């Protein structure tokens, strides 16, 4: 099920209604668990089994870790969890990709290998819930947390529908304690939660789907060569689209959880006002970047074993982070480019350690960061390297024979919306949404909320899946 559909409106109303009834807390948690399985099954019922496998394996792995006496046994339980989760992820997400690459490699070696094509369905959210359950066993293994006291709390942590299919990727220590005692939203939390859901759906349905996606499609999904203006507008449109789509989902998820009385962490912090790439990754998909940092980068040595190992760990983490997004070498290239940016930034920071930019240079560096981020989005959006090179050449003005593709409407609407997003991010870069809302006049909040709700309804979204559902 997606948040932006009528079925979810009815589903959420029922869940809210049930949660507000005077039932015992355990009964309410069971209701939430069943509702979460229904939420997932509404996409494709048989795949609830995979969710169940991931949940059960890690429950027993964590218990095994705590009860194990020897370090080798602890290692074994940890490996069981890693292999089970990454194995499932590997098969469903990368199975066909690995097979295709193996076939290509064999062909390069002169071996004609033609395997059957398996129509492997990618279970929605598998990249998210496997990482959530992995963080449970890894936190227990690293002795950062104890296992949940009961299976219900743990299963609800894994399956809790607001974050189940597209994050924020939560750690057990963030969510499991919230299930210990009864939680129900106050009237103000319910209203603010609904306001956050409206904001999130506005970002997704109005900005991403209605206005930005079409311009990106006309550049990236057509066989026409783009000129400079079209290539930049198409890429800027995608940069806006992916932010509004993904941050919109996260905001909706946070709002939905708040309506039920639960707190979820921030996942975005105005990333298009980042100055430098380490700043960008502290602002973009925060729960993924911090997960990769805590469970991959730091265990690989982090920055504690000299420069060479630091750069290797950084690059390895970013390449795998790219691959996490999809079974395509273009995603690996996207991750690799970010790894390169981060490595170069480390070198420059070390070389110019005492440098403090003035206000104008600060903004210029921010805009340079945003420009370089857009170059990475080319690889993220293009389905093939061929298309990526076409768009990059267009951005550099090298497609001399290109004809105009986008009409004035797309240029103006994308320019206005993306320009506004960047300005808003700069205004908000050191603030929180709550601090701005706290200072706004009540009437203004009502009016903006009403306008967003009105725009959502008249945008007439068709229930498009969020981009990150495919990850």
């Amino acid at each position, binding site marked *: *099920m*997606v948040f932006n*559909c*009528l*079925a979810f409106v*009815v589903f959420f109303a029922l869940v809210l209604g049930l949660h507000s009834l005077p039932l015992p807390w355990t009964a309410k948690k069971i209701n939430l668990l069943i509702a979460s399985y229904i939420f997932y*099954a509404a*996409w*494709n019922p048989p795949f609830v089994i995979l969710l169940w496998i991931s949940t059960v394996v890690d429950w027993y792995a964590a218990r095994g870790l705590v009860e194990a006496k020897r370090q080798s046994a602890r290692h074994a339980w940890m490996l069981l969890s890693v292999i089970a989760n990454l194995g499932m992820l590997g098969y469903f997400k990368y199975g066909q990709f690995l097979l295709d690459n193996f076939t290509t490699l064999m062909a390069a070696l002169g071996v004609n290998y033609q395997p059957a094509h398996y129509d492997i369905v990618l279970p929605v959210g598998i990249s998210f819930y496997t990482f959530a359950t992995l963080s449970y066993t890894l*936190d227990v293994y690293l002795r*950062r947390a104890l296992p949940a006291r009961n299976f219900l709390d743990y299963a609800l942590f894994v399956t809790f529908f607001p974050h189940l299919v597209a994050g924020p990727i939560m750690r057990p*220590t*963030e969510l499991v*304690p*919230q299930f210990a005692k009864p*939680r129900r939203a*106050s009237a*103000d*939390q319910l*209203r603010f939660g609904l306001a956050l859901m409206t904001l999130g759906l506005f970002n997704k349905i*109005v900005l991403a789907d*209605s206005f930005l996606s*079409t311009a990106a499609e006309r550049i990236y999904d057509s066989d026409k060569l783009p000129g400079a203006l079209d290539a930049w507008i198409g890429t800027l449109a995608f940069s806006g689209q992916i932010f509004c789509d993904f941050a919109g989902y996260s905001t909706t998820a*946070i709002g939905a959880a708040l309506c039920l009385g*639960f*707190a979820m*962490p*921030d996942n975005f*912090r105005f990333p298009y006002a980042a100055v430098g790439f380490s700043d960008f990754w502290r602002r973009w998909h*925060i729960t993924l*970047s*911090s*997960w990769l940092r*805590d469970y991959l980068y*730091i265990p690989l040595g982090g920055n504690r074993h000299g420069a060479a190992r630091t750069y290797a760990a950084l690059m390895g983490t970013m390449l795998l982070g790219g691959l996490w997004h999809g079974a395509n070498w273009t995603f690996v290239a996207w991750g690799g480019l970010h790894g390169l940016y981060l490595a170069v930034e480390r070198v420059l920071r070390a070389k110019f350690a005492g440098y403090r930019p003035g206000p104008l240079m600060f903004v210029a560096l921010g805009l340079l960061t945003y420009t370089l981020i857009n170059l990475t989005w080319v690889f993220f959006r293009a389905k093939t390297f061929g298309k990526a090179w076409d768009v990059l050449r267009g951005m550099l003005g090298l497609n001399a024979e290109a004809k*105009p593709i*986008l*009409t*004035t*409407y797309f240029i*103006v*609407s994308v320019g206005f919306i993306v320009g506004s997003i960047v300005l808003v991010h700069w205004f908000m870069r050191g*603030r*929180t949404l*709550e*601090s701005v*809302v*706290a200072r706004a006049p*009540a*009437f203004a*909040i*009502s*009016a903006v909320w*009403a*306008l967003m709700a*009105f725009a959502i309804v*008249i*945008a*007439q979204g*068709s229930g498009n899946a969020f981009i990150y559902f495919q990850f």
Partner: protein
Amino acid sequence: MNDTTAGDEHAIHRRETASDRPGVAQPVPKRPVPVQPWSRIFAGMLVMFALMLGAWEWYWRDFGVTPSIRNTDGLWAIQRRRIDNGEGDATVLLGASRVYFDMQLPVWEKLAGKRPIQLAFEGTTPLGYLEDLAADPKFTGRALVGVAPDVFFTGFAYRGSAAKYTHKESPSQRAGQWLSMRFVEPYFAFYDPDYALATVLRRQPWPDRPGKHAFIDVRKLSQTDAGRNTHMWSKVENDPDYRALARSVWAQDFVPSPDDPPPEKIKEMIKTEIERAAKVVKTLRERGVPVLFVRMPSDGRYLEYENTLFPRAETWDALLAATGAPGIHFQDYPELNQDWNLPEWSHLSQADAERFTAALYGVITRDFWKTPGDAAAAH
């Protein structure tokens, strides 16, 4: 979870995230609510939202719009599933918008005693959906396939994804379609794709970009019911300005443009689609499923354009020869070649669609499918 406390005040203005706490167990997040009169804000929002939506609905009703069921892939799926749910021997209507608008299902049902299944889609070649039926062993009925030359012989498929959607439709998508058809679409006139926010903004008079002319998109032309029976919207018939607008949309294609494929490419496309049709008709024939092609009426500048770019001998006649299937061309039958009212040259008015359906049914049962059950004999 409580409302904002003193400890949460800090979290309102400066909140740490996981990016600020490397290598440690992350704590329960803070999610404070800004201090505001949320009850009044919420009530004010609801009032403003209701006023805005009411104004928007009033505006479109004043324009002459009445509620219509949306022509979604989900609506198509409901009809398509009839074949798999016991109506595999039904008569299926396929084609582009001419079959969709001009074939009136209640008229056919009254004459035949059974309602056909409407699977036509505007701006879309029927071949993709005919191939889907050919791959479904449950389909053992009859196929009436409309041939709109500029769509059929180019393979254009504006709405070509419905079969794939149907086979992969999730429970939540099905539930959403059910809810929308019952609780939203019958009551709100604004809820038509032609009045979606981005669509309305896009068709405003933006200045042309040098070298890139913005084409006018097809506007609302029809009304649809829950059984996918569709007819021309009365505004097209009765409002001269709107009718002229509808004609001007088609007329954009009548003028040569640099983006048009060259004549050799068009010939190649025609050949490809005819071969494709021959293959699928053969598959269906081997299962005992008759296919009957129909060239629905067009007139005025649209007919001239079709005759120029898609001459009959190279398209319609070649199609029937290659497939071995029979066909009804409206110009070959006096009862189908009457002085019909096609307000924008391409689709019949509602009243004439009813008359045409009855006339076509008469021709079909007289010369082709002699009785509703005698499909094999006619083929």
